[in-house]
Each structure stands twice: as C-alpha cells, then as structure tokens.
C-alpha cells in the first residue's frame, strides 16, 4: 500500500506541473473569450491590415506625403471622370465650392463647404475611392489627392506638404457647423 501511494505521488507531481503549465499558457496563446471559450487573438499583421480608419486627430494615418501640385495628376487620372476636371462639374458628388451656401435656399455641400475634418477626406479616399477600384491608391497618392482637393477649395496652398503630422492640423471651414440631435423637436404630449 505504502509503495502504491508513493508511486501515485511520483506520477502525479509532474502531471500537476504539466496541467498548471497548460492552464497558464494555452489561454495566453489562443486568447479565447473568457465565458464561452471562442475566438482567437488577431495577429499584429491581421490588425494592421484591417484597422484602416483615420480619426480626426490623425490617429491611423500612415507614413507618406503629398502636395496639391503632385495631386493634380492623380486627381486627373483617377477622379476627374466622375467628379469633373476641377471638382465642380460632376456628374458624381461636387467636391469643390459652395462656401457660404449652407444657410441659403440652394446649399451646396462639398468638401470645402461642409466636411468638418480633413482626416475624413483622407480616410474616405483610401477606404472607398476610386469608386470602381477601391483599395488601389498608394498612401502618397491619397495624401496628394487630399491636398489637391483642399487646394481647389482654397484651404491649403499648392505646395503645402500634407503628411501624418500636418494633415490633422488643417482647419476645415465648417469644423463647427454640426450640432447634437435635439429631437424630439415637436411638442410631446403625455397622455393623462
């Protein structure tokens, strides 16, 4: 009996060590959800590929740069068919002009007159443009196109360099044009 007990101890001590190691290491490696044990941790490369949005303060902007001067060619070859030679002609969204029209009977909502953040323009060009070939523009091309559209709207100079530091500093004319939802905006009568 005594021999049997000590044998069990000899077997079980390493077993306990192995089990502890398994309990401690497996969740860290697989990072599954705590209650249901599903999912896995994304790899750094996966997150880099999928985490594409750019916040108003510039978080998410990649290295690279461009100016309106370099952006003119990019715009002409990749954007002008839909948005017109100078961004005013369409047939798709008008991107240039409209300043001072928002409180009139014919408001023209463009990048220059309406968009509150330059970072949003950068984000959207990379995210969804050109419409029929999204995801095909280099970071430099996106910086350049952004710079060209801001230049056409009189917001930056032709040789102003836009990059991850300077782009978030661009002050858009309609930056303070947005208000919180005040609804219900007609009287609410509580029934007695």
């Amino acid at each position, binding site marked *: 009996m005594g021999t049997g007990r000590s044998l069990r101890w000899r077997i079980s001590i390493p077993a306990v060590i192995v089990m502890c190691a398994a309990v401690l290491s497996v969740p860290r490696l697989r990072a599954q959800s705590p209650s249901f044990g599903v*999912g896995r*941790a994304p790899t750094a490369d996966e997150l880099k590929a999928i985490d594409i949005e750019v916040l108003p303060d510039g978080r998410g902007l990649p290295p690279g740069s461009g100016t309106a001067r370099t952006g003119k060619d990019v715009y002409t070859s990749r954007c002008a068919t839909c948005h017109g030679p100078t961004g005013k002609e369409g047939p798709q969204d008008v991107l240039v002009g409209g300043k001072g029209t928002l*409180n009139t009977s014919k408001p023209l909502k463009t990048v220059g007159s309406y968009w509150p953040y330059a*970072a949003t323009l950068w*984000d*959207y060009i990379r995210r*969804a443009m050109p419409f029929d070939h999204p995801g095909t523009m280099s970071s430099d091309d996106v910086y350049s196109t952004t710079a060209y559209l801001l230049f056409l709207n009189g917001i930056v100079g032709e040789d102003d360099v836009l990059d991850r530091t300077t782009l978030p500093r661009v002050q858009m004319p309609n930056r303070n044009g947005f*208000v919180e939802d005040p609804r219900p905006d007609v009287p609410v009568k509580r029934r007695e």
Partner: protein
Amino acid sequence: MKPDQFDDRSRSRRWFLRLGAAWSAALVACRRQPGGKSAAGEPRALGAPIREYGSRSKFESAKRFVQQERQAPLEEAASQTPLHETCGIITPSSLHFERHHSGVPDLDPATHTLTIHGLVERPLVFTVDELKRLPSASRIYFLECSGNSRSEWRSSGTTDVQRAHGLTSCSEWTGVRLSTLLHECGVKPEGSWILAEGADPGRHDRSIPIAKAMDDAMVAYGQNGEALRPEQGYPLRLILPGWEGNANVKWLRRIEVLDQPAMSREETSKYTDLMSDGTARQFTFYMEAKSVITRPSAGDKLHGPGVYELTGLAWSGRGAIERVEITTDGGRTWQAAELQTPVLPKAHTRFRWSWKWDGRDAIIASRATDDTGYTQPNVADLIAVRGLQSGYHNNGIQFWNIASDGTVTNGNRA
C-alpha cells in the same frame, strides 16, 4: 350609397344562383347515364411535386421598386418595399428594401470573420460558426432608411406608398447580442464609442455610442427563419433596433472600440441633417414614431360606396406604438384604429379600421403615438422647425385623397 347599385348586385346574384342550379341538374343527369363521364366530373391533372426551396405562386407579382428611368450608380442603389402588397407585420426577405453604397459583396461564411479590437482587454477574431455557438436571440424589429419619405418633404403629390415610404421593412432577426461579444473582449473604461465596418468594397463604416452597443444591439446572422439575404448583409450584420438603417452596418467585419466617434464620411458629409440656419444635426439615430395607410393608397381604386378596411403600418424607434388614429376628413376628426397584437417595441405594428365610405371626396390619413407620448406630426410642423433643406427623418403624416369616382391619389402637397 346608391340603392340602384344594390339592386344590380342582387339581380346578378339571382342570375348566378339560377345558373348554378342548372349546372347541378346537368351533373346529376350525367351521373345517371351509364357509360358517361366519371362520377367526379372533369378529369384533373396532378399538382406539382415537392421541391427543395419554395417560391411563390406564378399569379403573384409583388416586387421591390427599382428606379428604371435613370441608371443610378451603385453608390446610390436603393430598392423599395411594396408596403401596399404586404400583410401582417413581417416583410418577406425577398421584398425587404435595399440600400447599399458599393454593390452587394459575395461573402463566404467559411472564411468571413468578425474582429473586435481597440479599447478592449482581449481583441478577438470570431468565425461565423463560433458566433452561432453563443447564446442567441430572435427579435422582430423594423429597419428604416433615414431617407425614407424624403419625397414627401416637398411633395410633388405624385408618389405612391411604395416609392414614398418603401424604405422601411420589418424582419425577425436572429443573432448574438453585441453586449455578449463586448463582454467577452472586455471593454476598457475609456471606451465610449464603437466603429462598425462592413466588408463591402467601399468598407462602409459608422460610429455608434457604446451605450447602444451594450443595450439592444445585435450581430445578426438570421432573418425570417433563414440566413440573412446577401443584400441584407450575409453572413453578418449589425442590428441597432429603432436606429436609422445606415448605421446597421451590413457585411460586418470589424468593430473597434474607440474613445470618440471616427467622424466617417457617412456620419459627417452624408447622413447629417442640414437646418435652415446652415448648421447640421449629426448622429440623428432615432427613427421617430410614424405610420402610413398602405391600403387603400395612391394607385388603388375603390369600387363604389360601401365598407372598406383601412389598414397600414406604424412604428417607432423609441419604443412601442401606443395608438394609431385615422381621419377620413383631412385631419379634422380622428378615431382609434385597432392594433394587431402583440404590439412589439421597435417593430412594424399593423393597424386596421373598418370604414363605410359614402362615395364622396375624402382625405384619409393615419397618425401614430408611441409609448413616450410622442405623436406623429404633420410634415409642415417638421418643416417649421427644420426648414426645407433636410429631407431625412421625415416621419410626417401621409394623406391620401379619395375622389368620388374611387380614385386614390397622394394627398400631400408642398
């Protein structure tokens, strides 16, 4: 009412009864003749065999409205539900309205994943199969585009109920509560917004306050008892009950917890409501209480005086419909309609009201009140506050004109 019409009808009924009696007598005579036709009457062909996936009768033709005259670019693609041809509260998946911004992607559920990351303790990638293993819920919710009824902001008086109001539909959605997933990832205290992003070519994205994400938001994979339709976000979509359709991101591939809204193009330059003073309302998520009579509605014709059922749909993004009232005199007097039960919060609610039409010109409309006490206003009341530039979130009352010849037309006028 015209008494002569009833005389006509009873005359024709007597004629029909006499015809029926003659036909029965002929049948009896045939049966008595030995060697005549079979005892059961005319020979009948067998019906169609069973099939693996059903489709409707060839006699049915209800379909979504797709603008044909102008070839709209995919960025503006939309189709509208034939509200006048649906019954009850559920919209068939095949008739659920569509609105998407870069076409419908063809996603394989075996490879599609949902990544939750950002301000969380444990960023996680979930497969579709894994999400289906988690505690599920099925809920009936309407989904309405914020641009629904935009034509009626400055009505030309020409649209019908499908083209004017067909950007709302109602489905039973099945999926996982988003709060379940966020609890699994562990939201950090500074996490105050989420960004939801689709796997469509344009990577459509919207920011949502964390309070909504933790409240009743769902990651849905089921619609009306089967998988989501591709145009509704297959294999995964976000459902934000009662909130504008655009924020219910389809083809959901990523949720990032943030300490601020991302200020995406959709939530700054597009789905914002421009007021007459030049400011714009932003993050106008709620779809407020609304209703519309779907039958009779523009394009229908009443066939003479008599009893007609007025029926339609009411809904509110803030809760349950408490009552729906009907007018037949252009809004001077209102009477309560019957509500189909159970009345579900943030779902289409069917209402019905029996009307005896006297054959004279009439203007009919419905107005809904929800359980917050909010009553659907006139469009003019909304325009008085918001001005003429914003057509989004139009929940104004829809009037239909009924002429003495029974013709029904749009009764809204700018």
